[in-house]
């Protein structure tokens, strides 16, 4: 398997810049997710790695080899698309073996590899079935089978689970990750679904308008979003972003929001007087009678394990709290809110940039 390095990668379609100055390394054995909304440049990035699209400038290295301008077929890469393109007139075995037969591989070797791929994907019993009668999950397994028989250096996947319903998607997420581990593969995976990315990836690159906004482990991205965009994109429901006016100095441990003093991780930089944003994950909100941070319960959504409670604060801002399902709340209740002080984020409103706090220093220190 191999390492993929992307250096200053840039792609413009006429005046539209699809990918702007991307730099990242996918380490050998990494499960790497490109995550972002539609139109953010994630698929274009993947297509350039595959060789289906040529960059306007920049370099792509596969192992030590510069493959930037090599044809797709000369790169040892397997591509799995969102829509499983299977040959409808062939059975499962013929579909999976197709890439090998077209290379002129010896028949016994083809047979061995197909058997192995089918076993990995648990579709051995389907090998002689026509593909037309298969369920969508099985069809996607066949498409994956066609990618893995080639035993490539790396897998590129473009929303391979997008067409499946939620139940199958959850199952296939687990299977894909297990497959990646079993094969010792390097995988670059494109998705707009944060849950897929969070549950499978070692590293996530969050993209927005052609730019990588943040690169890190799922935990880093969730706990310390580097921008308002990332904070709002990750999490379901996403981070509560409460605007307030203020100025902050290095060493501060409190901010004044909605008429209450809120304890935050110690600031490591100054922020001039202006619009700031306090970021609070819904699960870090607690209801408490005696807090000065007042809000009214708007409604509650029951989710089994937990409930999502929508709150309207005295300053007019809306917040969501994730609370245990057995906490009793009623629409109209007046409540006080407390936040988990070690988990809060702060942002500059105009640039969207996260302010540095003790959280970042601790992460950098280990």
């Amino acid at each position, binding site marked *: 398997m191999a390492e993929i390095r992307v250096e200053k990668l840039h792609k413009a379609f006429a005046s539209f810049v699809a990918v702007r100055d991307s730099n990242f390394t996918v380490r050998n054995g990494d499960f790497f997710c490109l995550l972002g909304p539609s139109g953010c440049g994630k698929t274009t990035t993947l297509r350039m790695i595959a060789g289906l699209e040529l960059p306007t400038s920049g370099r792509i290295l596969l192992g030590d080899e510069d493959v930037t301008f090599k044809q797709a077929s000369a790169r040892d890469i397997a591509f799995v698309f969102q829509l499983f393109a299977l040959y409808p007139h062939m059975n499962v075995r013929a579909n999976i073996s197709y890439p090998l037969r077209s290379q002129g591989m010896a028949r016994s070797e083809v047979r061995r590899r197909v058997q192995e791929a089918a076993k990995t994907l648990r579709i051995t019993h389907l090998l002689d079935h026509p593909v037309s009668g298969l369920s969508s999950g099985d069809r996607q397994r066949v498409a994956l089978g066609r990618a893995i028989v080639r035993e490539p250096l790396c897998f590129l996947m473009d929303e391979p689970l997008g067409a499946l319903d*939620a139940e199958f998607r959850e199952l296939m997420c687990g299977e894909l990750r297990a497959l990646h581990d079993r094969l010792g593969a390097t995988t670059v995976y494109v998705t707009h679904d944060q849950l897929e990315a969070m549950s499978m990836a070692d590293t996530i690159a969050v993209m927005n308008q052609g730019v990588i906004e943040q690169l890190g482990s799922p935990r880093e991205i969730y706990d310390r979003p580097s921008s308002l965009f990332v904070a709002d994109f990750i999490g379901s429901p996403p981070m509560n972003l409460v605007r307030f006016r203020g100025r902050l100095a290095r060493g501060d441990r409190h901010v004044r929001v909605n008429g209450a003093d809120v304890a935050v991780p110690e600031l490591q930089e100054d922020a001039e007087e202006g619009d700031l944003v306090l970021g609070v994950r819904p699960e870090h909100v607690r209801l408490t009678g005696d807090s000065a941070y007042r809000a009214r319960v708007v*409604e509650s959504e029951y*989710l*089994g394990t937990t409930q*999502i409670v929508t709150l309207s604060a005295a300053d007019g801002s809306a917040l969501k709290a994730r609370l245990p399902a057995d906490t009793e709340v009623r629409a109209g209740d007046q409540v006080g809110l407390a936040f988990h002080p070690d988990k809060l984020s702060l942002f500059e409103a105009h640039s969207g940039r996260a302010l540095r706090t003790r959280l970042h220093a601790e992460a950098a220190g280990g």
Partner: protein
Amino acid sequence: MAEVRLQGVSKRFGTTEAVTELDLEAADGEFVVLLGPTGAGKTTTLRLVAGLERPDTGRVFIGGRDVTDSTPAPRDVSFVFQQYSLYPHLSVFDNLAFPLRSPARRMPAAEIDARVREIAGLLHIEDKLGNRATQLSGGQMQRVAIGRALVRKPTVYLMDEPLSSLDAKLRAEMRIELKRIQRELGATILYVTHDQTEAMTMATRIGVLERGRLVQVGSPRNIYEDPVNTYVATRLGSPSINLVPRSLFPGVAAPAATVTIGVRTEHLRIRRSDGAAGRVKRVEHLGDQNHLHVTLADTDVVVLTDPDEGLGVGDCVSLELTAPLFFGADGARLRH
């Protein structure tokens, strides 16, 4: 609005039994969600209520009146489909007004105007009334499609996966809005989905369908906490409930016929314990919670933990069940 009642309804297409002896009632003002995977008979049930299909046996009642033999029009239901179909050449206003302008209704223009504005306000699209339908985002288009159903005051609203074409964020917003609108209008809604979150968050009651049969009806909490069999237990909850062989937890007191123990991920207490049989195989960081995948005697068990728990891959752990459910050989729930 009116109540809807299905009584012993069956419908067969060729050799496939789509709906089998279905009994279901949606009371006036109730939001009833039919939940099930593809092919469970959800859409057929809606079409039977709408009069787009005729049952082979059984009766359909709307507002206490037997409508089994009547055509769709006199049933006066309003149907929202999965794929929104708007008139692209018309404005949002005209799209919304369209169902009211039917010659059969003869509604005065002033009344149409008032009704359209009221519904546009409910859906927060009042500032878009002058736009062409094609100038809207996907979420706004779907709101217009839902609005076109809401402008009428039908006996009942029938909705077939109306949110499934929207992205996750919009879907979450629309869930809340739809629930609010339903409350404000006091509407009776029969709603079909395979999405458990939609069912849990919007329904007054959920009906769980399996291959054409209604397996359980109850409040979301009732279905989640007290499922009648393993099928229902796996419908709600993400990640799914753990279903493990009874022999995995010999120390747990269970009814004699128990074959399978069901335990939700939040009903397991996990402890680091050197020499214990459980091994942490994988840690999924989902942000607000971690899912620990534990292998115990070759069986995978998923455990919900706090992200600050500090357990890692390879750790030896013991598991304790706090609220196990017991199931027999046929999957039916067993009680003490």
